């Protein structure tokens, strides 16, 4: 009986103490690298920064670790399970099933089910360790470039896994590159299981931001700051710097073997008709940043602008011609073509689309 009373009293005290503590601090900070992205009905209508095709499917990624996918040309979207809640900046799907997403805090995510679920392959924590270790190892072998990189690289992770990846490109399910801030770049040959730093293989002593990576034809391009485009042609194993006349940043680059366009701030577009050897400015048609570009099957380039406008660049005998259409009422960050040939763009307030039916109607007079 006495024991019983004691037990009750102890339980009571414990409960009282428990609630007192519960009222104050039970929380501890969970890093966005460790906090899975939360499900939200707003995921497809808030900040999305990348959109791409995975086979017939559309996949888009953005802030808070949001990845959404759509099988009906962007009408409806489902949210993918993502193990992190940092901002994701770029996507690449070399096949309908296999895809990679990269983003802030050095995160690299991998999906084998067409973007429905994602696993972490690498992040700023592991990169900080592995990249430095890689160069230290080579420095021991007497490589001087590696020695200086082993010294300089750690500055990128001084305050935690801070540097973002800004671009990702996979040629197939095995080979791919990720590029990012302050010249960081890494390559994988085994589908992302291991990543080797390629910082020493880019002609980038100033550590310029690598804003994206694209393959056009058989050449890989990395648009960068100060008008620089890095280029690696097939068979080469380094990226060489090509200087354009531009002084600002290129956010992206697209085109085909005939014409490549690099675009950036304040409507800037530079075109190259010789696979990146020489560049010439196109007249700007809109004074806002161009953030993304995609190529339609007929060769027309579609660019998204920070004003929400969509630009169309066609190249005919008279040279490149640019047209502007209203587009979204919010800043756009990325644009893609859906399986039916319609336009899908994403940005500050999520998805904007122009289904294929509308496009046909719109183009008819011009044909």
């Amino acid at each position, binding site marked *: 009986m006495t024991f019983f009373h004691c037990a009750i009293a102890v339980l009571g005290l414990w409960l009282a103490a428990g609630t007192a503590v*519960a*009222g*104050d*601090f*039970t*929380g*501890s*900070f969970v890093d*966005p690298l460790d906090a899975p992205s*939360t499900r*939200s*009905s*707003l995921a497809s209508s*808030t*900040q999305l*920064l990348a959109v791409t095709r995975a086979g017939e499917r559309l996949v888009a990624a953005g*802030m*808070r670790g949001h990845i959404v996918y759509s099988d009906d040309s962007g009408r409806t979207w489902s949210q993918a399970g993502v193990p992190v809640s*940092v*901002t994701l*900046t*770029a996507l690449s799907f070399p096949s309908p099933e296999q895809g990679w997403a990269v*983003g*802030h*805090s050095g995160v690299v995510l991998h999906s084998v089910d067409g973007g429905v679920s994602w696993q972490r392959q690498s992040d700023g924590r592991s990169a900080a360790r592995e990249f430095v270790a890689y160069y230290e190892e080579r420095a021991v072998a007497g490589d001087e470039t590696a020695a200086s990189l082993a010294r300089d690289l750690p500055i990128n992770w*001084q*305050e*935690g*896994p*801070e540097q*973002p990846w*800004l671009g990702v490109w996979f040629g197939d399910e095995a080979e791919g590159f990720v590029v990012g801030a302050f010249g960081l770049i890494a390559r994988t040959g085994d589908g992302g299981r291991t990543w080797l730093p390629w910082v020493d293989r880019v002609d980038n002593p100033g550590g310029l*931001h690598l*804003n994206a990576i694209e393959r056009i034809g058989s050449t890989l391009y990395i648009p960068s700051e100060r008008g620089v485009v890095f280029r690696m042609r097939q068979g080469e194993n380094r990226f060489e710097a090509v200087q354009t006349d*531009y*002084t*600002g*940043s290129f*956010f992206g680059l697209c085109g085909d073997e005939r014409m490549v366009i690099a675009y950036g*701030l*304040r409507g800037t577009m530079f075109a190259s008709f010789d696979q990146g050897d020489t560049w010439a400015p196109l007249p700007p048609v809109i004074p806002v*940043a161009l*953030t993304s570009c995609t190529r339609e099957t007929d060769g027309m380039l579609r660019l998204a602008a*920070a004003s929400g406008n969509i630009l169309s660049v066609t190249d005919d005998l008279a040279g490149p011609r640019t047209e502007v259409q209203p587009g979204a009422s919010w*800043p756009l*960050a990325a644009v893609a073509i859906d399986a039916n040939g319609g336009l899908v763009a994403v*940005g*500050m307030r999520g998805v904007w689309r122009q289904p294929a039916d509308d496009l046909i109607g719109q183009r008819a007079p011009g044909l």
Partner: protein
Amino acid sequence: MTPSEKRTTQGSLSHADDGKVAGIDLPVIEDVTQFDENSGGWLERLIFNHRPLVLALVAIVTAVLGYQATRLKVNASFEDMIPQSHPFIRNYFTYRDSISGLGNSLRIVVETRDGDIFDSDYLDLVREVNDRIYLRPGVDRGWMKSIWTPATRWTEITEEGYRGGPVMPFDYNGSPETVQQFQINMLRAGLIGRLVGSDLKSTMIVAPLLERIPETGEPVDYGDLSDFLEQDIRSLQSERYRIHIIGFAKLAGDMIDGIETVSFFFAVSALIAMLILYFYTRDLRSTLLLVSAAVLGVVWLLGMLELCGYVLNPYSILVPFLVFAIGLSHGAQKMNGVLQDLGRGTHRYVAARYTFRRLFVAGLTALLTNAFAFAVMLLIDIPAIRDLAITTSIGVVILIFTKLILIPVVLSYIGASHKAAMRSLETGSGERRGPLATIWERVGHCCERRYAIPLTIGSLVLGLASFAISHRYLQIGDLDAGAPELRPDSRYNLDVAYINDHYNISGDQFAVFTVTGPDGVREYNSLVEQDRLAWELEQLPEVIAVESLGGSVPQVAMGAYEGNPKWMDIPRGKQVGSLLVNTITTNAPDLISGNGAVAPVIAYLRDHKAETLEAVAGVVRDFASTHSTEVLEFLPAAGSAGIEAATNEVVATANNRMLLLVYASVIILCYVTFRNWRAVVVALLPLLITSFLCEALMVALGIGIKVSSLPVIALGVGCGIDYALYLLSVQLAAQRSGRTLGDAYYEALNFTGRVVCLIGVTMGAGVITWAWSPIKFQADMGILLAFMFVWNMFGALLLIPALSYFLLRTPGQAR
């Protein structure tokens, strides 16, 4: 024991049972010299043997308090209406000073109805308004914002970095070129929805207010400020240009104006009450006496308020009405007694003393009962309601002097007209004829089976239906858009509606403080958590937008990295983070405290309905309990919606607790008086039914339970129990002396029923004028209180006999 003697012992509550009691205890004395001046209690001797002294004292007190009353100030305080010890409010009081712009700023919108804002005439007018506001003492000039303030800047990201300047070009001269430059700058600065209306037909001037005027140290007087806004700012509007002004200072100013309007209603109330009284007594002399005594009570009350340091606010302005009505109706009973004695031929001096002797204790009991019911409101943790409880109680205590002492003393000098005296005798014995008398006769039959059954069943059904309605539909909080203090169609609320429609802000802000160590809110963890809270709030459909430091950093980060959207995240680096925070706080200083230890997360809500506020408070509480750590706490709440959420929570619990206490106190009082549980039920049921009906009426009128409707049921029940006490005490006494229920009730009806009627109607008349008040909650209170007073009267007159048929039919049951 004779019936009369029996009633005398019970008589402490039967205010009007005069004649017959008097006939035995108090002989008719026509010649004042034959009256023994040393008869009666010590108090009576003290008062009536020193009548000139009493009158002189009253005159002196009136002079002193009357002078004080003229100095009484009128103001509306924001803090008085909020529950002081709710955790949200404590957090608000602790941290509000660290955040400059949280709440008290004026927003002035200049609208053009012709063309758009890119017009030199329009811009000149805005400059004029801007300059006048700028020069007004009490405006926090440093943080003032408009298209004309140099701090309103545009920036553009170029290859070379940021480029920018003030939105209004330095060289603005009204030329089409400079106007166009302004247009370009305005677009670049992204002002649409913030300082420029979404239809480009208006711009806003945001003027944060200081608590005190720095030059003088005086607190800002909202009445003055509001006058300034009307006379110097709104006067600039014309057919072409409209000016909309919102902000607590303007709201308070409008409420102060409303208070002044209400003073006019007081005169109307007094006039109506006077007419009713005259109809009742048909004697101008006594009517004037009663009204002046009641007015005197109000003057004393106002004087006392000033002496006690109170100001007249929109709530306490109602107390004089109540005190006036209570004073008048109770005074009428005094008068009734004197008149009856006069009618029988007693000298006016003696009649006054008799009345005092008979009714002083009874009147005291009744007043103290009322005071007690009002005092229950002290338990509600809202200063406005506590002040209401205290000031009403002060008023009731004053009534003891003006009503119980002054009226008999004055009556002893002036008496009443013979006609009125004779008339009171006739009515007192029920010998009246006419249509009213026939109705009266009918009411007397309510205790018979044929009336009692339908009445009881009908009222029970009505009561249950009302209960069901109020239980299902009665809401907590304010249900209308705009400032709840004013009517939805008031100019202030029309201005609010205009601004809500054309700008991305809403007046309904729910703010949560993020609290850390100095400069802690700039750190990565803190910014991430702020953004997480913002994101969770954004999930609610009721939330239009959320503003926070953490939530703004990704945007600014994008700007800092040349507008590249891929940089939209919170940077981990301390230096970069701090730089971005500085960029934000230059334009939005109210997102961080001076020492960097406090930052609010502000949700702008669609409305301030109770469910909205509950949903938001729920999300905030859940978030705070899972994300607060020892170094980073989330403390709700500030902003009008946050404070209203706290108020709603307090009001919801207070409502039940107060009803419980009011009814408990009334039950105890009834039992002490009647010593009979059946009688307690008979007295209580009509009140309960009226309470439920009142709640159903609130549903029908779209009034929620809020600070202003909270006191209504307490006041209604506190005053309503009087009726039951008057009627039942006489009825029970008669039954106990062996009369049948029918006779006993008829007697009660004739002795006290008329007084019940008089009280119901005068009290109702006293408060119904509020219904026309420009201040919405006063109007709500007026309607509800008038309903309570009048319906309680019907309930008492009809239901007490009907219920008595079931519960108090036999002498045994009445014992």
